[in-house]
């Protein structure tokens, strides 16, 4: 299963519809301080079901919606979509036969989120279930946020054990 595209709109500083296309196996993301690189990581965690504002560097779950700039008004909703290529049939379960998998999350200003799986409404649990066993999730070891890498080795032995168990 390969990640093909990430689409964002109204999410944090990505107020305009923006699409990152992943054409190869190593994609670098570059740009000046404060331009929005780590917001991309937050977008991925969010669409995978992250529900804690603190883990999204935000002071409230609704505040992931674009909150305006010196020349724009706040947006009414945030939307993020991840598009996977599943032609190698890696996903198990009912989605095994789909060649393309799209997961999407849309949140309106009242804080209500709606999740979509291949354009069909679904529950948050359906999204987290798909990735069970693949190691992917909003707090998975496969997403390393800025500045926390060294915490892995500074953790206490009982915490490191919990970490490794989650990974299994």
């Amino acid at each position, binding site marked *: 299963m390969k990640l093909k595209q990430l689409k964002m709109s109204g999410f944090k500083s990505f107020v305009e519809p923006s699409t990152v296309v*992943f054409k190869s196996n190593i994609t670098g993301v*570059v740009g*000046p301080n404060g331009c*929005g690189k*780590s917001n991309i990581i937050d977008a991925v965690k969010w669409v995978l079901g992250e529900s804690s504002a603190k883990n999204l560097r935000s002071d409230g779950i609704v505040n992931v919606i674009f909150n305006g700039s010196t020349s724009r008004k706040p947006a009414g909703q945030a939307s993020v979509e991840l598009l996977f290529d599943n032609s190698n049939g890696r996903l198990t379960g009912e989605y095994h036969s789909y060649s393309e998998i799209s997961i999407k999350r849309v949140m309106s200003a009242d804080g209500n989120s709606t999740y979509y799986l291949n354009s069909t409404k679904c529950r948050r649990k359906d999204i987290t279930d798909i*990735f069970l066993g693949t*190691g992917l999730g909003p707090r998975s070891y496969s997403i390393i946020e800025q500045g926390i890498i060294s915490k892995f*080795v500074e953790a*206490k032995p009982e915490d490191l054990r919990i970490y490794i168990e989650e*990974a299994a």
Partner: protein
Amino acid sequence: TKNRFKSTYSAINDSFKEIFPKLFGGGKAELYLTEKNLLDTGIGIIAKPPGKKIANIAALSGGEKAMTAVAMVLSIFKLNPSPFCMLDEVDAPLDDANVLRFCEVIKDMSKSVQFIVITHNKLTMEMTEQLSGVTMQEPGVSRLVSVDIEEIIDAA
């Protein structure tokens, strides 16, 4: 669950022992169990950068800690590869020699794993196969632009 834990632990330890010397250009490292009882035990790390005595993790330098942590993450990854791996400026504390070894290891693993790497380091940028630029020409609004790697390196 005891056996499950044991097999997970030893699989990760095997990868860790393999990846650490690749990242450091030598030396060795391994995990160890703090208690005999598998159900209660914690997991500790012993790391020995090349030419040094075995160090308590706390005595390692900033860059040595970051490299050891990358070795840990990639070892867990090998056991249970998720569709992709996102790394946000993990190369910030590294000197050029370590960045180059980091890039080697990522390139090697990218045969089976998709990496997305956020970085300010030009050596890391040169290692990637594709660059996606983010700008904020309009204050407060992020936009995605395509980037030509030569452009970045020359502008340095």
